[in-house]
């Protein structure tokens, strides 16, 4: 894993910026300058490194150890080596829950990004009541999944839901949504994208607000139309924020859980069962903490691989100005 990371790491810092050697400083010996610089780096890094090492990486190492045991949280753990991994890798259900998770991401990411971008662009104009509207678009982000799931189950009710009623008006027979194994995941995707639009909007708005209006004015003077300005000025300048949104959405998307739990509980018939729900069930309901930890590490490897690809690809399109 370290090798994998190291390889990726070579590319992580594509956007690195730093000041060259200090210029107007009293001359010092090279050695004392180096010590001073090391101390500076430590001073900036340790406040975050200490909690991360102690309270995230430490438990991660412990989880790796647990993944090599059979443990129901009640009796002492029993060492089983790589048996949990072997079981998971040969169980067809593992492939299934990973596929469901990927299905979720593939549907969710374009929807939430394009929707969030459109809203951010729309609300970055001189619209009356703009602040209030931003608040309204942010509401779903802060509403709990219990409530959101109830509302969406009602909107997408196959018999008398709003969506199917509207579709019927146009002569289309609506699908069974969450009650139909083929439509359960699309239902979750719709509700999730709707809920997270405000999240993407907030990140992209912060990016848009940092864009120099003079650049856009200059483009307009040059005769660039709206679309042209969007593609040649706004989007390139927004690319660091976009990169952030995509990396974070992928990391979070692979760990989708709350919405599945609240909307379908993984059903019908396991059709929307995802990886983290399985991890939760295995740990706290089925008494299989070892298997849950092993599954988490498999998930970790997948997310890491996807993120590494992201980071390696960023130099092609992310523009740090």
């Amino acid at each position: 894993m370290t090798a994998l990371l190291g390889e990726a790491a070579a590319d992580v810092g594509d956007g690195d910026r730093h000041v060259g050697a200090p210029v107007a400083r009293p001359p010092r010996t090279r050695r004392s300058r180096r010590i001073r610089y090391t101390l500076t780096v430590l001073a900036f890094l340790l406040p975050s490194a200490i909690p991360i090492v102690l309270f995230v990486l430490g438990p991660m190492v412990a989880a790796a150890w647990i993944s090599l045991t059979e443990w129901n949280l009640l009796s002492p753990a029993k060492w089983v080596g790589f048996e949990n991994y072997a079981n998971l890798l040969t169980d067809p259900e593992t492939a299934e829950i990973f596929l469901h998770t990927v299905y979720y991401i593939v549907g969710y990411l374009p929807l939430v990004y394009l929707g969030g971008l459109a809203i951010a662009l729309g609300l970055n104009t001189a619209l009356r009541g703009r602040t209030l509207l931003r608040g309204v678009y942010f509401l779903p982000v802060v509403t709990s999944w219990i409530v959101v799931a109830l509302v969406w189950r009602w909107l997408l009710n196959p018999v008398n839901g709003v969506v199917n009623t509207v579709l019927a008006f146009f002569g289309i027979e609506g699908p069974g949504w969450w009650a139909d194994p083929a439509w359960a995941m699309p239902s979750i995707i719709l509700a999730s994208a709707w809920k997270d639009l405000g999240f993407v909007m907030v990140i992209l708005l912060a990016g848009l607000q940092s864009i120099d209006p003079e650049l856009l004015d200059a483009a307009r003077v040059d005769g660039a139309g709206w679309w042209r300005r969007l593609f040649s000025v706004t989007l390139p300048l927004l690319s660091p924020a976009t990169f952030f949104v995509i990396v974070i959405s992928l990391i979070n998307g692979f760990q989708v859980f709350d919405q599945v739990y609240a909307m379908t509980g993984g059903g019908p018939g396991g059709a929307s069962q995802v990886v983290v729900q399985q991890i939760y069930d295995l740990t706290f309901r089925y008494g299989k903490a070892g298997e849950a930890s092993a599954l988490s590490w498999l998930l970790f490897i997948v997310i890491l691989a996807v993120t590494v690809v992201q980071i390696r690809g960023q130099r092609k399109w992310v523009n740090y100005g």
Partner: protein
Amino acid sequence: MADTTTAVDGVASGSRARRPARTPAARAALGRSIALHVVIVVGALLMFFPFYWTLVTSLSPGSGLTSTPSLLPADPGLEAYVQLFSQLPFARVVGNSLLLAVITTLVQLVTSATAAYAFSRLPFPGRTLVFGIYLATMMIPLQVLVVPLFAELKAFGLVDTYLGALLPTFAAAFGIFLLRQAMNQVPVELDEAASIDGAGHFRIFWTVVLPNIRPAIATLAVFAFMGSWNSFLWPLVVLRSPELQTLPVALAGLQGQYTTQWDIVMAGSVISILPMLAIYLFAQKYVIQGVANTGLK
């Protein structure tokens, strides 16, 4: 100001378009402006509806969840809120949640900003690897970390203390990554100018870089606060004394073993949403002023 007419300029030119002599371009701009308003407002209604429904249910005493939500409370009353306040030690749980959220937010702002500065401005051997490891901490679900983390804090004697609830939230890769992206966009020439004036890294960090990433800092503040305010699993596990309970855990208690009083659950939901909304709106104001004040761009 940076906030006004950056991307969609049709609205700004809309006022010009109301003059009698309409050029085709102005007419198009007006049409675009109207379309934009309609789309945004319809979208806002879609966004607002679930919250509205929560509000209506919370104001309909004794109502269960009806299979078809009604648009107006059947028999409006504040009973659910009264019951909520009498069932929960409300001041205490809200106070606990606020305390944890404020401390988490402040500490995370510090740890994220300093780490982001190191990753953006201070080259050192293995820096990209360290950044990769930071990012990797987001890739393991909390569900499997809870048990080892709990055992570790027990060994430190921190179970059932505010500190035990707080420590694991003190640094988060999300915020570090967010601020690093913002810092990477601050022109390095600004650092160099300050450096020529004799500024060291601490001064550049404080007076050059931080003021230029205010929108990102405000955004992080909102998300850090929200993360703490809504966090459930860890506070549930680590805080047990009734005096230390947080709002989400207390609200979860409104769902019983066999039955749930939905009007009270919805009232609790309204009450937990409002502070978050207030913080977001406040942060928005700050962002806009912040950008206006720096004079950069």
